[in-house]
Structure formats: structure tokens, C-alpha cells
């Protein structure tokens, strides 16, 4: 798998406080990487390091093949756009003026494409309205438009739906999916709104207290989270035969315990097992959401 961003044992310390403690992560090309963690877990700190706003106190990261500290890192950063915490826009300027500013900073030869960008983020008709009069959602979208100036290959968004109303959340989600699908832009999105992330992310990284707890693809996570029936039987071998015949996926936990994934019709299932002479001792329906998976991962109450 090709990674556009990799960190190795990345650390950041403020005085005696370790905000990041040896974080290792891998962001695959073309993915939407959901960076999950509660407030203060270290998400924004990591993003600040990646954007060059702060320097790591330990470890390293590689962005588009360039290590931090190498000469080429500035070139690599030109391939990214970022919205860190609040949208970085001049409040006393219009949407178009903000984009013109970013175009000039990037040294783009002309202002062609500004209107298309505004249309892309849903701000084509803001005219002479200054950004300070925009709603939070409009500012967020303008922030993304500014980050998109220069056609970056990767966008880093820090809490992009924080404080947005439901309509704003949907608009930002649609925009991210559109950019990912149509322009193949890789996204690194930090959030603590798990439900929202689960609608977008293709990969996840769970961070807690400055540590990367787990990295997992959405597919693998789905496998782990999807509804399952936990069964205790006399012989898992016989049960496996039945499941294989019916092409149902399962995980054998022990000689007598097995997790069967997907929805099953209980009466029909018991009859199949009876035919094979397999005795069922207990059945338990289980379902795990991203939320409960995260809580299980980071230890729930101990982190409160």
C-alpha cells in the first residue's frame, strides 16, 4: 500500500506535558483517514506538527516521501492543504478576495479557477459579503476552498464539522466525499464525532492520551463491529460445517464458542444444527457500534 503520510514515534512535549507520545500512523493514498480521539487526546497537536506550525520533540514523519527536517519538506507541504481548528480566512475580506490572497501566496499565475472553487464549496453567490458576516458553515467551506487553492493532493481537516448545524454537517460531508471520489484527494480528518466519521472514513486511527491506540481500515472495523451471534455449542466443528454450507462468515473463539456474523433466522438455524446433530447450549445477539468499539479500545471510564 502506498502511504502519503507516515509518522514514526512522533512526540511533542510542552514543558513536562507530553501531548504526543510516540505516535506511529500511516495514511494511505486516496483514503479518508479518520483520526479519532477525545478532546485533548493529541489530534490537533499532531496536525500542527504535520503542517509545520510546531516542531516535534521526538520521532519523525514522512510526507510524500520527504522526511521532516529534509530540505524537500517545504515542497511536499505544497501538496497539502489544511484547515487547522478554525478556518484560516481574512474576516475583513470577501470569499473571492480570500481566495485571491491564497492564489498570490502560492504564486499561481492567474486567478482562473476561483469561481469554480467557490462553486465547488457552495459559495458562488456571496458577492461582496465579507467573511465576518458568514455563518460558521460558510466560513468552514471557505476555509476548505482556501485549502483547495493550488489543487493539493491531500487535505488535512481538523474537526471540520465542529459547531455546524445538521445541514452544514451534511454539506461538508458531501463535499469531502465528492473531492475524494472526483479529485482523488486524500483526507486526514480529525474528529471526536464518531457517527459522522463512520459515514466518511476508509481508514481509522484511534488516539488516546497522546498514544496511537489502533489503526484499522473501515472494512476491518466493520467486520469487527458488525452484528454477530455469539454461540456456545457442543462441537464447533459441526457448526462450522453448517456455516460453510450456508456461506455465513464466523470466527471460532474456542472449541465450544463461536461468533457468527450477519443476520440469521434463529428457528431455521437451529433446525440445520439439529440435522447435523450439533447441540446448542446458548445464543446471544451482539452488536457493536464504532462508538462502543472506541470506548472498548480506549478503556472507557478510566479516561473520563
Amino acid at each position, binding site marked *: 500500500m502506498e502511504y502519503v503520510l507516515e509518522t514514526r514515534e512522533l512526540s511533542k512535549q510542552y514543558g513536562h506535558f507530553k501531548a504526543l507520545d510516540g505516535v506511529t500512523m500511516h495514511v494511505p493514498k486516496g483514503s479518508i483517514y479518520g483520526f479519532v480521539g477525545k478532546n485533548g487526546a493529541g489530534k490537533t497537536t499532531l496536525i500542527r506538527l504535520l503542517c*509545520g*506550525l510546531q516542531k516535534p520533540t521526538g520521532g519523525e514523519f514522512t510526507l510524500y516521501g520527504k522526511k521532516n527536517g529534509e530540505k524537500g519538506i517545504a515542497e511536499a507541504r505544497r501538496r497539502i492543504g489544511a484547515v487547522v481548528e478554525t478556518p484560516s480566512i481574512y474576516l*475583513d475580506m470577501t470569499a473571492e478576495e480570500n481566495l485571491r*490572497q491564497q492564489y498570490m*501566496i*502560492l504564486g499561481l499565475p492567474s486567478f482562473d479557477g476561483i469561481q469554480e472553487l467557490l462553486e465547488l464549496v457552495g459559495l458562488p453567490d456571496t458577492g461582496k459579503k465579507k467573511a465576518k458576516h458568514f455563518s460558521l458553515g460558510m466560513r468552514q467551506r471557505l476555509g476548505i476552498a482556501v*485549502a483547495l487553492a493550488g489543487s493539493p493532493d491531500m487535505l488535512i481537516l481538523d474537526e471540520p464539522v465542529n459547531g455546524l448545524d445538521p445541514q452544514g454537517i451534511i454539506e461538508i460531508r458531501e463535499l469531502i466525499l465528492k473531492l475524494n471520489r472526483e479529485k482523488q484527494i486524500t483526507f486526514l480528518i480529525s474528529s471526536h464525532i464518531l457517527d459522522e466519521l463512520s459515514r466518511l472514513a476508509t481508514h481509522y486511527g484511534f488516539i488516546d492520551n497522546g498514544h496511537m491506540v489502533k489503526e484499522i481500515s473501515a472494512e476491518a472495523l466493520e467486520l469487527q463491529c458488525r452484528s454477530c451471534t455469539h454461540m456456545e455449542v457442543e462441537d464447533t466443528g459441526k457448526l462450522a460445517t453448517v456455516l460453510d454450507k450456508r456461506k455465513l462468515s464466523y470466527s471460532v473463539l474456542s472449541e465450544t464458542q463461536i461468533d457468527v456474523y450477519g443476520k440469521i433466522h434463529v428457528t431455521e438455524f437451529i433446525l440445520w444444527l439439529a440435522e447435523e446433530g450439533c447441540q446448542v447450549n446458548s445464543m446471544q445477539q451482539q452488536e457493536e457500534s464504532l462508538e462502543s468499539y472506541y470506548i472498548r479500545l480506549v478503556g472507557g471510564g478510566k479516561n473520563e
Partner: protein
Amino acid sequence: MSNLLRAGLCRVKKDKWLWLGIFVTAAYGIFGCISQYQAVVQYEKTRTLEDVVFLCIMIPGITLAASVSVLVGTEYSDGTIRNKIATGKKRSHIYLSTSVLCCIEALLIYLISGRLLLAMGLPLFGFFKEPLWKIGYEYLLMLLIFLVYASLYQMLAMLNQNKAYAAIICLIIGFLLLFAGSYLYQTVDSPQFYEYAEIVDGQAQMVRQENPYYVTGVRRTLYRFLLDVLPSGVTMQIVTGEIFNPVRAIAGAVCDIIIFNGIGMYFFQKKDIK
């Protein structure tokens, strides 16, 4: 860096605080010019063009504090400095380009308010009485003082991420410098002895008394040095037309600009930006 400058110049053009700064500086100078002219007309005092054209130098310590701190502080408060760093711009380039923009603001205030005062003073007071090389030197020194203030306030604003705090700190320092410069100049310029008339046995006699506030020795040397290195100290010398050490005043201003920019850039390179 040219890209940063190009983008920054667009901001400078629209900077309301800059135009307010120009207005206040020019208004202060014009008010001073009218006052001096009234003194000539009403009290028959002697005033020359030199006495009025440098009046606008009293104010940039305050007006530049506001305009520079807002120009730089907006980058932090609106978060736009992050766009520059995140897209791979070098911090040294960001600092230097901001430095050029602050100097352009200072230059605009200097040129517009200076020209206005000259245009107003010429018909009222006639042409300069002092040699032109001296006037030219004083104009050059005045320009350098404007740039010193711009460098000082830029350093303070770049190292403070809170726009409001930065503006308050710059303004307080501006006022403190003004008071310090005035105090130092008055102390150094005061005579060693006072002479006054006293009636003894019905006859007036001139009595010479030592000035208790006259400073001597190391303290005097230090005060003279501070007058040449503090922008407000040089300001006082330009306004009164009495420059104690012309070479040291120029060197002091140039050193101030280099030191403020050097310190600012050094710490900005190391600064954690939120």
C-alpha cells in the same frame, strides 16, 4: 518571498488602520503647524520651517503601534499565518516579507504626513533657514526612526499570538518610550547652573546656583547613549533641532532595526504556532 509580498501589499492597500494612522499623524502635524503660526502672528515669536516640518515625528510611536500590531495581529487572529506555513513557506520569508510590509506602512505615514506638513509650512514660514544638508540629514534620521518603530512593533506583534494583547503592549511601549525620551532629553539638556537675580541691600545681584537635577559622570554618559539609541530620544533631538551626536544617532537607529528584526526572526523561527 515575492508572492508573500504581493499578497501582503493587497492587504496594506485596504488597511483601515494604516489610513487612520496617516490621518492622525498628519492631523497632529498640521495642528502643531497652525499653533506655531499663531505664536508668530499673535505673540510675534520667531519660528522657521524647520520648527514645524519634523513635528509629525512625535506621533509614529503611537500610530505605528496601532497599525503594525493590527496588520500583524490579524494574521494570528484570523489564522491566516497558518495558510502560509502549511503550504511550505519558510518562516524567515514570512518574517522578512511582513517586515517589508510594516516598513512600507511606516514609509507611507512618513511620506504623506511629511509632505503635507512641508506643503503647509512653506507658505506660512518660508523656506528652510538651516543648510540643506542638515535638513536632509534630519529627514533621513526621521525616516530611520519610523522604521525603528515599525521593526520594534513588528517584533512584539509577531511574537505575541493574541492580537489584542499585542496592540495593547505596543501602545504601552509607545507611550513609555515617548515619556522616557522626553525625560532623558530634558535631563540631559538642562543646564548645570541656574542664574537668577536676587535683591541684596536694595541692589540686584546675579546669583549662580547649581542645578540639583543635573546629571554627571556615568549616569550622564548612559543618558546620552540612551537618547541616541531609543527612537523617542532621537525624536526629541530632531524636534528640537539639536542632535548631540549625528553619527551615533544614525548608527543607533540602524542597529535598532537590525537588532529588532534579528531577535524577532530568531524567536519566530522557534515559535510554536497554534
